């Protein structure tokens, strides 16, 4: 019996050891298999179009994936970065996009997506549409984060942990010149790329040389030629108004009216280009209205240089004080079935009104930090999120820096103003950085007077703070559902509805400016004094 018990104990021990060894071996084998499959994984990516098929209609990318590796692949997330490695894709909860969300097409397919060996998403009918995250609302900031206005990298993350990426617009990867009987042939190739491979998908041959009217100087970038070795198309723009010319670079005396913008697209091959133009007003100049035609008004061919001219017109209304207008834009064409986009170009600057009358003060505005928040973003994600059409924006934020030589305190009388032609709209400041937790939204409620008895947002010398302005129309106001944010009122209080109604905005361009009211102490023993500063405005276009 004792022997039996001992035998059982020993057998149990060895069985346990054997089981442990088995699980260890299995884990080892699984790990090796996973590493092996990861090393065999290879995806070829292609961006083949920027279309209006998705909603929103602008700034979307279409991505196809072909599994050219030796193991099946599963795509788990797609994300977009800029050339600095910063994430520019905008999802509901994360920049890593995994599918549609609440009916919005952040992606048009739901991930994960398995791609068998040798199969492409095109053949599966599963090409991936990536929304830039803009224009998903009828009232959306129109410019920032648009994929079209910068070089971006679309990245695909697989379940094996590999990341494959492709640049958009497609880079011009090779330009080779070959001497052939009867002339010189230049072959220009665009390519698709993945993390490990590069494959030429189109090849376009043109005769004679490429350059600025035959010049070989790579710095040539005139309206009659194009820059060799960079993008295949080059855009030049020139703006003027009545009584001036493009070449004179008009800098004064313009108080509003029609601005003509000439856009010249130059290419080394015959293409059918379209142009995308965005006016950028500064100061208190409202966003101009107008557009470019869908097709060029004229075209010329000089040797192998093809030139297309678009004549665009914009109407500029003078703002409260003055500022400038600059146009930026680019051209898009299809070459060999692949989308080719020019580098972004900037026009000359036109002065509107009188710049000298702009108020100066210690605060400096970073208009690129302008953001908005809505109910779908109530959880506190500070990323600008565009919401569905039924949501209204609840708050705006923007960063300002104290460039003066004394600490200031921003008071509750500060506000964000949309300077519209028909009606001004004011959105009043709320407290410091909101906690976004529960309903404990910050407020200046209870503040009165100047420091030290009053309250406000203290900004040290050189410090940058984020100011939050409430959109007065709360979420789902008048509806029985929704969270009903009650931000926004006069002087940071939460009871006075006397502020702009966001709903009143139509599809239009407006100029946004900040009127900052702040207090400053002239000396250690002096009383605080109140000042106001109108920060230079910036254009916003709502659709």
């Amino acid at each position, binding site marked *: 019996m004792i022997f039996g018990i001992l035998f059982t104990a020993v057998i149990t021990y060895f069985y346990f050891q054997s089981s442990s060894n088995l699980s260890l071996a299995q884990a080892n084998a699984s790990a090796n298999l996973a590493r092996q499959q990861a090393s065999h994984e290879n995806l070829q990516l292609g961006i083949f179009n920027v279309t209006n098929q998705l909603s929103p209609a602008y700034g979307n990318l279409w991505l196809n994936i072909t599994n050219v590796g030796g193991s099946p692949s599963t795509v788990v997330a797609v994300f977009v970065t800029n050339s600095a490695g910063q994430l520019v894709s905008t999802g509901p909860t*994360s920049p*890593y996009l995994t599918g549609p969300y609440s009916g919005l097409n952040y992606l048009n397919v739901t991930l994960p997506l398995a791609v068998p060996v040798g199969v492409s998403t095109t053949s599966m009918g599963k090409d991936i549409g990536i929304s830039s995250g803009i224009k998903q609302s009828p009232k959306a900031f129109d410019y920032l984060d648009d994929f079209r206005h910068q070089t971006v990298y679309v990245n695909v993350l697989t379940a094996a942990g590999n990341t494959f990426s492709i640049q958009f617009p497609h880079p011009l990867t090779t330009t080779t010149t070959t001497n052939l009987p009867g002339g010189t042939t230049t072959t220009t190739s665009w390519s698709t790329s993945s993390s490990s491979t590069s494959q030429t998908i189109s090849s376009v041959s043109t005769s004679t040389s490429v350059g600025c009217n035959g010049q070989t100087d790579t710095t040539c970038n005139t309206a009659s030629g194009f820059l060799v070795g960079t993008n295949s198309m080059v855009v030049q723009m020139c703006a003027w108004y009545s009584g001036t010319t493009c070449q004179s670079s008009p800098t004064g005396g313009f108080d509003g009216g029609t601005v003509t913008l000439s856009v010249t697209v130059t290419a080394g091959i015959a293409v059918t280009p379209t142009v995308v133009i965005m006016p950028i007003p500064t100061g208190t100049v409202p966003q101009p209205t107008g557009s470019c035609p869908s097709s060029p008004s004229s075209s010329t061919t000089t040797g192998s240089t093809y030139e297309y001219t678009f004549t665009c017109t914009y109407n500029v209304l003078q703002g409260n004080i003055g500022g400038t207008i600059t146009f930026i834009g680019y051209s898009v064409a299809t070459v060999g079935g692949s989308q080719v986009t020019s580098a972004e170009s900037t026009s000359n600057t036109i002065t509107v009104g009188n710049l000298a009358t702009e108020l100066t003060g210690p605060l400096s505005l970073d208009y690129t930090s302008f953001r908005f928040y809505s109910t779908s973003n109530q959880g506190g994600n500070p990323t600008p999120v565009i919401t569905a059409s039924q949501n209204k924006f609840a708050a705006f934020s923007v960063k300002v820096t104290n460039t003066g030589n004394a600490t200031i305190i921003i008071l509750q009388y500060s506000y964000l103003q949309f300077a519209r032609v028909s009606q001004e709209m004011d959105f009043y400041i709320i407290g410091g950085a909101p906690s976004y937790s529960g309903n404990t939204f910050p407020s200046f409620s209870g503040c009165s007077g100047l420091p030290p008895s009053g309250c406000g947002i203290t900004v040290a010398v050189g410090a940058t703070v984020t100011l939050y302005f409430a959109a007065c129309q709360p979420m789902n106001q008048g509806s029985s559902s929704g969270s009903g944010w009650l931000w926004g009122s006069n002087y940071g209080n939460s009871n006075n509805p006397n502020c702009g109604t966001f709903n009143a905005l139509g599809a239009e361009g407006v100029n946004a400016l900040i009127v900052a009211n702040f207090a400053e102490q002239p000396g250690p023993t002096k009383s605080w004094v109140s000042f106001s500063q109108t920060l230079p405005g910036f254009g916003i276009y709502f659709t």
Partner: protein
Amino acid sequence: MAHLKRRHAVSELMGTLLMIGITLVAGAAVIGWVNGQAGASEQAYGSNVAANVNYLREHFVIVNVQFPAADCWPTTQSQYCSQMQISIYNNGALVDSISSITVVDSGGALDVNLTSSTSASHPPGAYCTSGSGCSITPLLSTATMTTGATTGNSPLTFTVNLPISASACSTLVCFNVGSFYTVQVLGKYGYLAQVQLTASG
């Protein structure tokens, strides 16, 4: 006739019982010892195997490291950033968490060392040299990463915040744009992922 001297002895029955008793006691002692030794050995071996299995099953990748432009100053030369965002995707075979994140600069200096015992705001130390120290969100002690290619499973992004702002960072650790950094992420079971990058704001 010689008087037969009688000797006292246990009976055969008693002897047998005694032998059985002694055997049982000794056997029980041996069994106890063997079981104890086997149990201790199994426990040690099992722990070792479990650690190895977990280590083999643990795997994650650093998908992206970015320095958000909104937290970089100034916008001209000598740009530096206060925030680093590290996105990690768990492609291992178990639900995982991160044990520590360290950032080492090109000179080999330890700029940031955040562990699962780090509270919301790390106390000043060799890293984050002064002020209130650096912080990380979400906390490593609470953040878990699900695994596998399941719907909606995307990388988890950790944000490392340095206690600097628009003021100069001459006396503080800061992420200098253009400088070279090594980011090391240590998993709960010992897996180490590392990425080297040049900061760009």
